[in-house]
């Protein structure tokens, strides 16, 4: 029974990790930069969901798409104001590209944490549950109704994103830009637009993840720091820029932490991912689904 409990809990946590990591992976795939403010998109989503539901009294089922919308808009605004210089007319910045991305996303992260801390306040808020059933018992397994529904919603969102990326018009253009930005540009694809869509989508996914977990993880302004660190680990494990890799790595990490926390030590639970990361960097640096290198 404990094994089944741990497996289910690990998979559920893995699904939430995946929701976060897919966005980060997409951004890396398109822009080849790491967004250090990704955790703060998660935080903004958690607050948008919680405060809109508690302060405005709207249904959690309306607050959830609202949080998605806030995340999408935040991603779009950040891309237009802060990320666009990376690839739009700032050719002389070429050598500074990575430094710019690191500094600007770090600054954004600190800015968002502090602005929420000052405007909303530093206190924790428990987000409302999506359903009123506090505990669902399936055989020997007990799980909170919200956790189960949130996991189902997360799975639906992940499937929808995977289908959009694979089959939609813009999804195919994103894939093309991810494979070769210059080549896609020469083929007539608006790479700036593809980048904007990806950044916006990543913001939305992180925000939904934050919203879904707001009932379980009681958001505070720094709530995004931990999931962001997990996401960085997952993106490298899965293969930089690989969406399927991120999903598999998320589930593996979730289950690994769940079992390791019981059978090895709970105190070292957050180090398991980092340990695996070191092993991967030593023996399979391209990750599970990544490519060794690509030159054009």
């Amino acid at each position, binding site marked *: *029974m*404990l094994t089944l*409990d*741990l497996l289910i*809990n690990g998979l559920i*946590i893995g699904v939430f990790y995946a929701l976060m990591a897919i966005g980060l992976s997409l951004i890396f795939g398109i822009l080849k930069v790491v967004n250090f403010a990704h955790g703060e998109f998660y935080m903004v989503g958690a607050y948008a969901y919680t405060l809109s539901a508690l302060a405005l009294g709207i249904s959690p089922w309306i607050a959830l798409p609202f949080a998605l919308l806030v995340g999408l808009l935040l991603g779009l605004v950040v891309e237009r104001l802060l990320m666009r210089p990376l690839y739009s007319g700032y050719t002389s910045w070429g050598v500074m590209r990575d430094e710019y991305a690191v500094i600007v996303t770090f600054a954004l992260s600190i800015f968002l944490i502090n602005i929420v*801390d000052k405007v909303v*306040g*530093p*206190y*924790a*808020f*428990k987000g409302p549950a999506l359903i009123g059933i*506090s*505990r669902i018992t399936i055989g020997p397994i*007990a*799980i*909170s109704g919200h*956790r189960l529904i949130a996991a189902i919603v997360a799975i639906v969102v992940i499937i929808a994103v995977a289908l959009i990326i694979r089959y939609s018009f813009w999804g195919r253009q994103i894939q093309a830009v991810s494979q070769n930005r210059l080549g896609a540009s020469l083929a007539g694809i608006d790479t700036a637009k593809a980048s904007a869509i990806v950044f916006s989508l990543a913001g939305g996914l992180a925000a939904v993840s934050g919203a879904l*977990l707001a009932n*379980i*993880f*009681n958001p*505070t*302004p*720094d*709530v995004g*720091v*931990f999931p962001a660190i997990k996401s960085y680990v997952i993106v490298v494990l899965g293969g930089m820029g690989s969406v399927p890799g991120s999903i598999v790595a998320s589930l593996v990490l979730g289950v690994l*932490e*769940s*079992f*390791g*926390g*019981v059978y090895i030590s*709970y*105190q070292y*639970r*957050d180090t398991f991912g980092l340990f695996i990361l070191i092993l991967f960097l030593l023996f399979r640096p391209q990750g599970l689904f990544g490519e060794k290198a690509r030159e054009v």
Partner: protein
Amino acid sequence: MLFRRAGLLAAGLFAFSATAFAADPIKVGVTIAQSPPGSVSQGTQVKDGLEVAAKMINDAGGVDGRKIELIFEDTQGIPEKARAAVEKLITRDQVVAVTGEHQSSAALAGIEVAHRYHIPYINTNGWSDVIREKGYPEVFNPGNYNSRVAIAVADTMKSLGAKNVVAFCENTDYGVGLAKLIGVQIGERAKDINYKYETLDRASKDFLPAILPLKANPPDVVVEIMLPPAAYILINQLNEQGVAPTKKTLIYDASGIADYPDFWKNVSDSAVGMLVFGLYHPKMPLPELGKKIAAAYVAKTKGDPNRLLFQAADSLYLIAEAIKVGKSTKPDDMIKALENIKWTGTRGEITFSHEKSGFKYHQWLDVPYVTFQITKVNEPVADMKLVQEPGKPLDPSKLEKTK
């Protein structure tokens, strides 16, 4: 004639400057958490308590005619930041004493700096015994201490007739220190109790891997030794998994978090039935100063008084009293005055132990405490059921059964 005039002028200038110095405010440094990951709930309560006390002291004419000026620094509950904050307060702001600290890890960092500069440090709420065991003459502890909580927990577990007790503690000096001390006290006072503890990362959010193994064989009591927001998440996840509170398993909150302003916004029905270690309950008798501080706090914040309000007020009043008795703001005079103080504060008569070994050094040993039980959602502390009064053992017959 010329010399006489110059002499008079110099004397006049000296007198003027001496008067000006006499009117200068007495600067007191305060380190508190005003942003996460530190406990902002605690930080806010301490800040309110200090401000209420400072206003009362200043309205009454200050200390020997000088006003108290509080200088706040945010530590975020992080030791490195606490160390830097105390350094800044002492060297740049020239404070005469430091107080306010409410998290043990930050206090342990702060006292090192205060000790180096030989500046009095009134530890408002750092519970870790290690703070006392350092034996620094500058550090005085009018607040609670881990050994006292450990004894309270062990006595309560014995009164409850518990056989299996599991504690979840945060990975801080306070959390791990208290969990270990509870083990020691249970070993001495209730040998037949099977006790173990698990350390949890206070920055983490998912505690299920630590909770799930309890489902097969739930303990009689889960002792929670964490600060918010991690404490709230743990309580919710214990309830989510049906581990506690149940008919079989009680939750005992050893951190006294039930009077935090954001408590009910974060736990809802998960906390009903929980036993709480309390350093303040409205039904506890208070000295005159305590009643005045409580009234001033209610007028200022419209909120209910809480333990940290009284601890913070006592901390500042002790500094003022040390200056008055020592007739100076010099560290040696203040320290000597504090060592021999016998003063009735907001919670009782405070004296500091001179016993140099262990947790007793410069500690007010008789800090009063109670135990109360939460009986319904959104219950104010005043309505929570007092099941153990100060100086008396817990009465199990007063406990309400968990549904």
